[in-house]
């Protein structure tokens, strides 16, 4: 039935994707790798935006923090890639919570403007090489390859499996979130904060937690992004990237796993496949946003209620 398909669509996509390297060329494998990374970032944006209902238009910051933590630790201090991931998660989560703490009482559009401000500050910090660790406008090169039990993962297939694993973990976490008090509380806050607080929900705590979780997950994706490209530079974490992530969630379907995955495909995979048309992607996506918002305000693949 429709409901169970919707519920398991993430699992179906994930298993199907795992088989792709057996049949596809290297360019397809790297496209899927990028898809996996951006899908995780989009899912992490959805935690804050689609689930907890906070207009976060600076989510690329947390993705960038994760990527730069990995780049700096690996290139300058020689920390193995996979060891940098937990650090990237924790640092991104802390940044997310610290930035969120003074902001979460802001409503809707005010929060949105504040998050844009943070994204700009973050970009300026990277470009101006604050602290002498970010490499300025050029970023950081020569990020190493991850190794597992002594085996270096340098092939596209190997990196793909790593990226796909993280996507799988993210999908499981999102699925669990839907079935837990935490996920419900996020929705209560999104739908009616006053009603939620009069039922005992500490809104501030849960909103900061939403930022922490969303940022932490984006940080993990950042590690793999830095690894996949072997380089990081400020341009990957600018305001426009945050807008894209925001659009993926809104257009795809808030709090809907298939919706967010579909949005990621439209925004990151389609332009890669039709490279000649890539320059039109913002035009096409902009038009798509307008059409979807008018005709289907819940998103292309909206969340469905799950009867228990």
């Amino acid at each position: 039935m429709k409901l169970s398909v919707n519920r398991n669509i993430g699992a179906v996509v994930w298993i199907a994707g795992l088989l792709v390297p057996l049949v596809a060329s290297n360019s397809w494998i790297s496209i899927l790798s990028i898809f996996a990374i951006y899908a995780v970032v989009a899912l992490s944006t959805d935690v804050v935006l689609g689930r907890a209902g906070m207009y976060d238009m600076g989510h690329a910051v947390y993705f960038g923090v994760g990527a730069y933590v990995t780049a700096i630790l690996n290139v300058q201090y020689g920390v193995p890639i996979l060891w940098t991931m937990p650090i990237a998660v924790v640092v991104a989560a802390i940044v997310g919570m610290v930035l969120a703490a003074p902001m979460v009482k802001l409503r809707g559009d005010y929060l949105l403007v504040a998050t844009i401000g943070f994204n700009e500050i973050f970009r300026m910090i990277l470009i101006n090489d604050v602290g002498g660790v970010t490499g300025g406008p050029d970023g950081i090169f020569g990020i190493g390859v991850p190794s597992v039990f002594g085996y270096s993962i340098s092939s596209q297939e190997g990196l793909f499996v790593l990226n796909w694993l993280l996507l799988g973990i993210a999908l499981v976490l999102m699925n669990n979130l839907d079935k837990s008090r935490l996920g419900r509380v996020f929705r209560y806050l999104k739908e009616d904060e006053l009603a939620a607080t009069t039922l005992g929900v500490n809104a501030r705590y849960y909103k900061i937690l939403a930022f922490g979780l969303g940022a932490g997950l984006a940080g993990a994706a950042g590690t793999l992004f830095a690894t996949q490209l072997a380089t990081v530079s400020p341009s990957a974490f600018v305001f426009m990237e945050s807008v894209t992530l925001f659009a993926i969630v809104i257009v795809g379907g808030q709090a809907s796993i298939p919706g967010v995955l579909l949005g990621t495909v439209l925004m990151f995979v389609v332009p890669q496949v039709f490279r000649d048309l890539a320059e039109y992607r913002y035009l096409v996506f902009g038009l798509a946003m307008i059409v979807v918002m008018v005709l289907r305000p819940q998103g292309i693949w909206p969340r469905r209620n799950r009867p228990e």
Partner: protein
Amino acid sequence: MSTSEPTLLALDNIGISFGGLRAVDQLNLEVKKGQVVGLIGPNGAGKTTVFNIITGVYKPTDGRVLWKGEAINGLPPYRVAQRGILRTFQTIRLFSGMSVLENVLAGKHLRTRQTWWAGLLSTPAQRREEKQLREECMEILKTLKLDHVANEVATSLAYGIQRRVEMARTLAASPELLILDEPAAGLNDNESAELNKTILDIRDSGVTVLLVEHDMNVVMNVTDHIVVISFGRKIAEGEPESIRNNPDVIEAYLGKDDDEDEQEAFA
């Protein structure tokens, strides 16, 4: 109800101003354990404001709110809820797009043990608790005759049913004091008769009730004690019978009943 029961809630000279408007002034009110207390008054008298002060939505400009003798004014709403004071809203505030069951589960928030990481990891204990919570909520839905709509989207249901869902949600929190803000508004005669019975059942289960209501049928039949306010001040209080015959009350409130109904109809 005997008056020897301990006082649960006391408003001690509560006042609040919005700009130049004195919405509530020098209000004293006592709710004893096991009572059903009615707060009535003309529209704009400040009844909902009083509820907002009690539940922490507004901070009073002066005076104290005492819960079992302890001042709770100034506490945020979620801390007031932690003490066992739960409310419904005059304009129903259900979580839109969520099922009736999910709405009622919200009432279980404070009775839920699972940590956020247990939820993300979906531990066996967390899954057991979720199952348990759902069963408890289904029981509550059954007693309010709502079990047949448990999986419907709450905000798509008829108005009278939504009111019951909101009440079920607060009952799920096992309140000590239940505050009902015009529970009969928008209900038909059958539904409001049913509401009378529900309120008395709630009281008999050991929950103290404070309610604002315009429907005199409900107020006179279920309350043990009535407080009448007008323009933010208390003008009378006593048993339903004495309030019914109080000339001040008739002038301030009942005499304007027709206007009330008209305004209600447009509300």
